């Protein structure tokens, strides 16, 4: 039957080449036996339409051949959970490193422009796609090697025998109290936004309008100027931000991001006292100066005193709030420690 021959030839094209002849011979024997039985039941050969209907019922040549192909996965179910985890990590780190490099590049140029920043943001998807492509290629190669028995990497498999219940991360304080625990996305966002905040912060000395908006132009035109105490104040804030970024990145790298970090809150509250202390210890409590004291003292002297007094008073209030918060944190830490000891007994 010519139609059956054409069908089998079409099937052959989609079969593994080493077994084509064998599979086609078996298929031919089975299908011809089926055809003979059909024709015997009818008492005549099948018409062309009947033969076409029969072959259509068997399925397209590709459909018939597909199950003979060995099952291949680009990344199989055994290592897929690890792949997904590594992909998330790689994309997150690509974004962080790209953000750092972009900020450094922007400041390495003399005049960082909004266009350069916009271009850098537009380029981010390509960075993420490249990171994802590399991870996928590596895992596809690992899958290929593992399937053929070239390598064995049980640590990559979801059913790894190296897993122990003791290696599970502890429940966070929030989880214990029924609140939603800190997510990985939140930990990544904190690191990324910390870096972006630092970039924004370092723009302020050259471009004060990013902090004060139109107020920067008003300050420039006003008889007042900032006292030298603002320099150590500014750099103390930069240093605290750097410490915070370093802490967040270290927590991400070491896997501590999902654990409760009560000491982190205490440390940063203490560090938060430094800028307020700088204002409080400013020589003569002077935070703002007159540009031309000889000529403007009579006119703006009282206003200047009021501004300096306001800054000093604000710094005192901030210090009191931070100290109260520190006290509250200390009480909480002590209570938690007591509860843990009591539970252990």
């Amino acid at each position, binding site marked *: 039957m010519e139609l059956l021959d054409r069908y089998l030839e079409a099937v052959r094209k989609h079969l593994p080449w080493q077994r084509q002849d064998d599979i086609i011979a078996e298929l031919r024997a089975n299908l011809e036996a089926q055809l003979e039985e059909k024709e015997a039941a009818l008492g005549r050969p099948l018409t062309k339409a009947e033969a076409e209907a029969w072959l259509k019922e068997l*399925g397209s040549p590709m459909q018939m051949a597909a*199950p003979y192909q060995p099952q291949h996965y680009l990344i199989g179910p055994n290592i897929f959970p690890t792949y997904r985890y590594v992909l998330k990590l790689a994309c997150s780190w690509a974004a962080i490193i790209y953000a750092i490099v972009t900020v450094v590049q922007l400041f390495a140029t003399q005049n960082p422009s909004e266009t350069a920043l916009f271009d850098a943001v537009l380029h981010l998807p390509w960075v993420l796609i490249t990171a994802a492509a590399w991870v996928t290629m590596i895992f596809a190669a690992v899958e290929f090697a593992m399937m053929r028995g070239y390598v064995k990497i049980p640590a990559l498999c979801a059913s790894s025998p190296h897993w122990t219940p003791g290696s599970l991360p502890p429940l966070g304080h929030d989880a214990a109290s029924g609140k939603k625990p800190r997510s990985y996305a939140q930990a990544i966002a904190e690191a990324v936004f910390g870096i972006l905040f630092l970039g924004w912060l370092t723009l302020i000395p050259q471009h004060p309008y990013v902090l004060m908006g139109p107020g920067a132009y008003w300050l420039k035109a006003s008889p007042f100027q900032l006292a030298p105490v603002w320099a150590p104040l500014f750099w103390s804030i930069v240093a605290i931000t750097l410490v915070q970024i370093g802490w967040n990145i270290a927590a991400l790298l070491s896997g501590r991001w999902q654990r409760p970090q009560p000491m982190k809150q205490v440390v940063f509250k203490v560090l938060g006292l430094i800028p307020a202390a700088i204002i409080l210890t400013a020589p003569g409590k002077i935070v703002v100066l007159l540009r031309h004291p000889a000529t403007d003292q009579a006119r703006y002297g009282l206003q200047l005193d009021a501004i300096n007094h306001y800054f000093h008073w604000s710094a005192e209030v901030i210090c009191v709030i931070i100290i109260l918060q520190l006290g509250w944190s200390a009480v909480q830490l002590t209570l938690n420690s007591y509860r843990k000891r009591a539970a252990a007994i």
Partner: protein
Amino acid sequence: MTIAENLFENLRLELRRGCLTLAVLAQLRQERYGYTLRKALADDGLVIDESTLYPLLRRLETQGLLASEWREEEKRNKRFYRLTPDGEQMFAQLLAEWHAINASVTASVAATIQSTINPSL
């Protein structure tokens, strides 16, 4: 095909997959070639597509559960399959497993029906 129909079809195929292997192993305690095997299964109420059955036979042979040989019958060369000793052992194990699963599912379904009829139980 609606989403519900598609879901049913997927679940039905999943449910059938293991049973087909068991049925094929059961039939091949007696030597058969592809087409007569398909007919025997269909006579028992288990209709299997050609594109499912014939590759399944190859897979089971690769796994060492079936042995095959080409032989002429009714002036046509045919590939006959039968269980190997390993296949017979595997069939016995799978059959025991199937009986256990069947008994559990039957008991669960019966309990559910019973509690639906008489919620106080």
